[in-house]
């Protein structure tokens, strides 16, 4: 760690000192990687081939957990379908809405700071608090949202209590917390060179043409970034659907209670919730590890896509 002030030594000694220095700086993460990533990941693979309930010692049962989860566990495919639904719809809506809002914010000239802050604030609301608030606001009986919608003659769906509307309600909640994407898109939009717009305007290009041929190509890396990180976030979607399901079903809180996950009718059940259900409600650690690995493979597939397509996510500085 003190390379600069040491007297000159052989090249080998210097290299050794540099390696030691690097190891010292990297050590927190090296330990963290081994203990909190590599070991539990290998262990998850190991337990996925074991029958284990946390009490009796684990015993090898081959591919039984895998075939049970994929063919018999009644919650797996509904959860997979919901997760894919949320990945497709929530990501598409969030990217479109975030981009639209970013555009709007760059056009607002009066009190722009106030608008930006107001648009951004919901992103900060803790997920449990935001979800509770939305379950109340959207409750079909007396909720303010349906009161307002009804007053102006719009349909008043059952939201979190109707299996057809629970995922759209979650989508609304995800759109409410759009602040992060808005800021990212806003920064990207402000980086588009002004001259390009001026030149296009001289050529008589309309607003749509300018958006299509100047704005979009310039911000496409950010759009891709938003899509891929959005996909990964949606695959991890846990707190909001879980809390929404429990609260809308009227589950009494507290520890260790059993509840049917995914209310109403499994419509808010996601893959991460299933890990909890299999592991901590049914004490079937083997199956929980199978679901965890499915989730892992999906996430890694998208991460690989992110690194390959972008190249730049970790590329600069090399």
């Amino acid at each position, binding site marked *: 760690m003190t390379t600069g002030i040491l007297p000159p030594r052989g090249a080998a000694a210097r290299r050794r000192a540099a390696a030691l220095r690097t190891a010292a700086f990297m050590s927190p*993460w090296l330990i963290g990687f081994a203990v*909190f990533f590599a070991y539990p990941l290998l262990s998850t693979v190991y337990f996925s081939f074991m029958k284990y309930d946390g009490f009796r010692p684990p015993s090898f049962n081959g591919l039984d957990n895998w075939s049970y989860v994929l063919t018999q566990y009644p919650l797996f495919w509904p959860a997979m379908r919901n997760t894919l639904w949320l990945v497709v719809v929530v990501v598409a809506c969030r990217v479109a809405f975030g981009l639209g809002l970013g555009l709007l914010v760059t056009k607002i000239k009066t009190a722009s700071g106030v608008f930006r802050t107001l648009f951004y*604030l919901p992103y*900060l609301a803790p997920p449990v608090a935001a979800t509770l608030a939305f379950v109340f606001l959207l409750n079909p009986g007396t909720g303010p949202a349906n009161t307002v919608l009804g007053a102006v003659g719009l349909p008043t769906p059952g939201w979190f209590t109707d299996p057809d509307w629970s995922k759209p309600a979650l989508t609304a909640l995800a759109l409410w917390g759009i602040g992060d994407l808005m*800021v990212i898109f806003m920064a990207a939009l402000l980086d588009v060179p002004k001259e390009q717009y001026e030149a296009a305007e001289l050529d008589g290009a309309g607003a749509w043409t300018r958006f299509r041929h100047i704005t979009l190509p310039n911000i496409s890396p950010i759009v891709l970034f938003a899509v891929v990180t959005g996909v990964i976030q949606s695959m991890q979607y846990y707190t909001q659907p879980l809390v929404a399901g429990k609260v809308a079903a009227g589950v009494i*809180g507290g*520890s260790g209670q059993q509840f049917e996950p995914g209310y109403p009718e499994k419509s808010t059940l996601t893959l991460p919730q299933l*890990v909890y259900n299999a592991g901590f409600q049914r004490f079937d650690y083997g199956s929980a590890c199978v679901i965890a690995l499915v989730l892992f493979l999906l996430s890694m597939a998208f991460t690989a896509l992110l690194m390959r397509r972008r190249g730049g996510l970790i590329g600069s500085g090399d």
Partner: protein
Amino acid sequence: MASGTTAKKALHWVAVHSLGVAAALFFVLPFVFLFLTSVMSDQQALTRDLWPRTWEWDNYAQVWHTPGFLTWWRNTLLYAGLGTLLTVCSSVPVAYALAKFRFRGRRLSLMLVVAMMMLPPQVVVIPMYLFWAKQLGLSGTLWPLIVPMAFGDAFSIFLLRQFLLTIPDEYLDAARVDGCGELRTLLRVVLPMAKPGIAAVALFQFFTCWNDYFGPQIYASENPGAWTLSYGLESFKGAHHTDWNLTMAATVLVMAPVIVLFFFAQKAFVEGVTLTGVKG
């Protein structure tokens, strides 16, 4: 011609700002209804009324004095405060090495950091739970959530590295020529320049801990003395399940600190969000 463009500009202004107001309503009205319900009487909160007939400020006092509420606050502050401190201290040197040292395996390390960043916490929760609960007997406490933060957090490392890349190498070389070792270069030269990046990482980590539900649910749920606000809030709803006014007051009390913190640290926070997406 001139008046034509002026009229067009005025129209454009009106269109943009009306859209802005409409969007603002979507973002703000939930907060407004939330707050209005939190000061209603328990009976009125069960009606379709939007405006409180009487302002029951006492609801807040009632929530505040709910057994456990202050414990949840203390636990959340401990988790978020200690967690943030440990994360920053352990992630800065790693990010510095990844940004400024040349060594074999750097690219691989970086890819592994990104992989860890993308990993859903549920993927490794079974072995981690068995490790903390069965081997170390620490379930019912927040230590299984706090201790790992002493070993670097992938997202913080990544974000800090992106920030440190923007510091020109010349500053570091100058410090080294002056006889500073790497540790002193980091502490004396890099840290002061990296303050905005560190502030952003610290804020993110604080919010992540503050908002965490899954971690406390796994490790702390069996012991109400270790619950955090996020976890406690949900159980509060369960225990008061028809008292929407009290639940909404509790919700406001959980949201308020983060929003207050935001107003104090707005700049660092927005810069941090931008950094995640734009740099690199």
